[in-house]
Structures are given as C-alpha cells and as structure tokens.
C-alpha cells in the first residue's frame, strides 16, 4: 500500500524534472546549420577524392608514373599510363584517371606515392546525374587548376 503512493510521488517528480530539461532546451540557441544557405568550414584534413598537387617550382605535378598507387589500390580505381618521350628523363604522364564510384577512401595511394604527388581534395558536395561524372581525369584537373 505504501509503495502505491510512493510510486505516484517519485514518478510525478521524475516527470517534472524531465519537463524542466526540455523547457531549458527550448531557450538555448540552435546547434544546426541551415545548409545550403550556411555552410560549415571543412577541416583541411578532410579525405575527399585524390588530386595531383601542383607544385609552384615546376608549375606542374610530380608524378613519375611509377604505378605504385595503381598497384596499392584495393578497389582498382586508378589508371596510370605514361610514355617515353625523347629528351625527357623517365616517363611522361599521359593518363591519370580515377573511378571515384569504386574508391573506398582508404588513402593507400596517397601513402604509397614515392614523390608525395597525391593529396586529398576537400570537395564534399558531390552529386551528379550520371556515373561518368565521377570518372575524374586527374591529369586534366591539375593542368586546369591555376
């Protein structure tokens, strides 16, 4: 019999303390961001799709077409091809494509590159209409970037 009444009082008190929490939250400022009208600043370490870095001293990339990234990739999404041109030491990069639909963002390619030519981009607003939009031509991207 006593527990009948004590349950009522403890229960009612627990309900009231719950209400106090929510009413306090009603007057705290919101924590969400109204995307796409406001955007958050992305950390520079964000792991987007890879891009060749454009170095200022040469004005171009530092890829030596060794193919390590292609070998290390677990998902087989990188294609690297080069050709030998006369007068130039080593191979010249002609094709560097990334099939981003298969990429698992593991970072093995960036770590495998012996010249540190690859880095992550910070593009996260990736929405496309066709699958081919995500077959990036990395060589063209680095040549077109200023």
């Amino acid at each position, binding site marked *: 019999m006593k527990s009948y009444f004590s349950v009522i009082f403890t229960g009612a008190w627990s*309900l009231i303390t*719950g*209400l106090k*929490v929510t009413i306090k*939250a009603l007057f705290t400022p*919101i*924590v*969400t961001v*109204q995307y796409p009208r406001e955007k958050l600043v992305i950390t520079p370490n964000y792991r987007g799709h890879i891009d060749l870095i454009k170095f200022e001293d040469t004005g171009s990339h530092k890829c030596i077409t060794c193919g390590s990234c292609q070998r290390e990739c677990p998902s087989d999404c990188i294609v690297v091809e080069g050709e030998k041109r006369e007068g130039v030491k080593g191979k010249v990069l002609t094709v560097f494509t990334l099939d981003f639909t298969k990429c698992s963002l593991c970072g093995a390619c960036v770590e495998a590159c012996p010249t540190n030519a690859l880095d992550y981009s910070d593009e996260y607003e990736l929405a496309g209409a066709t699958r081919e939009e995500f077959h990036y031509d990395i060589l063209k991207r680095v040549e077109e970037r200023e």
Partner: protein
Amino acid sequence: METLYSIFPELIRIIVCAIGGAVIVFGNALVMGYAERKLAGHIMLRPGPMEVGFHGIIQLVVDGLKLMGKQLVVPAQADKPLFMLAPILAFAPVFVPLLVIPFSDKLQGFDLDIGLLVILAFASINVLAILIGGWGSNNKYSLFGAFRSVAQNVAYEIPMLISLLAIVFMTNTFSLREVAAAQSPVWFVVVQPLAFLIYIVAMVAETNRAPFDLPEAESELTAGFHTEYSGMSFSLFVLGEYANMFIVCSVATVFFLGGSSGIDLPYAEYTGVVWFLAKVYALMFFLIWIRWTYPRTRFDQLMNFCWKYLIPFSLVNLLITVVVVKLI
C-alpha cells in the same frame, strides 16, 4: 406558423456559426501545426520549418495544398466504403462541440442545457472513426492501431467524465456558459486541483497524444491506423486530431480555468475571447511540451494506470466533493 422572415435571425446565426466553426477548425490547425513544428524544433535544438515564408510561417498552407493535390490511394482488397468513410467520420463531428463552447460572454453558438453531454458524445465518435479506418485498411499494423485506440479511448473517457462530474455537482448545471460564469471569485482549479490533474491526463489520452500515442506509435507500428491513408484523407485525420485537442482544452478552460474571465478589456462581453484563447493555447503548449519529452507507455501499463490510479482517485474526489457540497 414560421415564415422565412421570422426565422431569419436564426438563419443568420446558423450561417455565422458554420463559418465560425470552419474558421476555428482550419485556423486552429494552421496555428497549431506551425506551433508544434517550431516548438518541437527548438526543443530539439533545431529551427523547424524555415524555408517557405519568413521562418516558415506559411508552411502549413503549403502543406495543405500539397496534401490536397496528392492521389488518394486505396489499397487493394481494402474495404473501400469503410476506408473512405473513416476520415470523414473523424472530421465531421468536431463542428458540433464548437457550437456550445462559450468563447466569451456573448460569443456562443447555442447555449444548450446539456452542453457538456453534447461535447462528450461527439468526442467519442472519434473512436469509431479510428476503428473503421484501421479495419478498412486491410493492413495488420493498422488493425493493431485500431484495437489499441478503442481500448484506450473507452477506458480514459471514464476519469474524464468523473472529474468533470465533480464540477457539475458543484455548479448544478451541464450548461457550459453557467459553469464559466460560476467561477467569479475563484477559478475551480484552486478548489479542485486533483480533478484538474486527472482531467489533463485523460485529455492527453483521449486525443491520442504522446505519451499515450500508441494507436499511431511511429516506431512500433510504422504509422498505426493511418498507415494507408495519403493526401486529403490523411489531412482530415490530422485536422480532426487538432480540432479535438482544441475542444478538450476548451472544456478544461471552461470548467477549471474560468472560461473567458480575466482583466476586463473594452467591450468585455466580446473581447473576453482573447483571454479564452490565451488559456486554451497555454494548455495546448503544455500538450506539445509533454509530447516531445516523454517516451511512450506500454499498452498494458497505460490501461493499468487508468484503472488502478486515475479512476480510484477521481471517484474519491467525487465522493469528497459530494460530501462537501451536501454539508455546505
């Protein structure tokens, strides 16, 4: 013999009441829908509707237009007459109780001697609508929602009625205007706090609001009895629910919070409606507040709570009221 000329004032009154009823129901849905979503958002530390209009103020209008334009999908092998009848049955009976509520001293549709009984009678048609909707959907989840709703609504009508009966014993009348007028020195919430609390809990259960929203328990039963409804049928259910909330909060205001009494404004007989609406919407804010705070009760715990806690306390309250009224 009554000519058209002699019953003309009554006709005008009927037309004004009908228009007023429609304005109240739809206006209430607009205000309540917007308030619920905004308050829910801010309790959850997010802004709520922000896109359409300034801070989403015309969101409900746009939603209404969208729902009106959607296809009315009737599931295969569903009982089509019952399926189409249920939303109408949920929505139509809300107009009659609005006629007997005294919004202020002079603003009342019809002052019936049995006003309270009319309100309670029409509020229980909602149960039938949910049962018909759940059965007619040919969906086991909807059937569950319908079963739970019937038991819940029928059970919680009893404490609701008994706590109101305590007030009726004190004022000796069922007419709502006289009950509101009888609270001149002090509101009945001070005299009968226990009845007020019991009525508030029963009110939450009658309108199927959280934490008693098992008929439409979203995470257990996908959407309960209105799973299969889309477009205008669904919006009729929602309109009926918001109008029901308005009606039960108005009854609480009239019976416990003094109706339209408050600081006298100019033209007090008509502008008392401001105080009335303020009290009603304060109670509705409370309903929204508890919806977004508490988890859902389990079904047998809900029935236990009604039979073992609410009904004994309301009966004791009635007994004490009767004894005190007899002695005074």
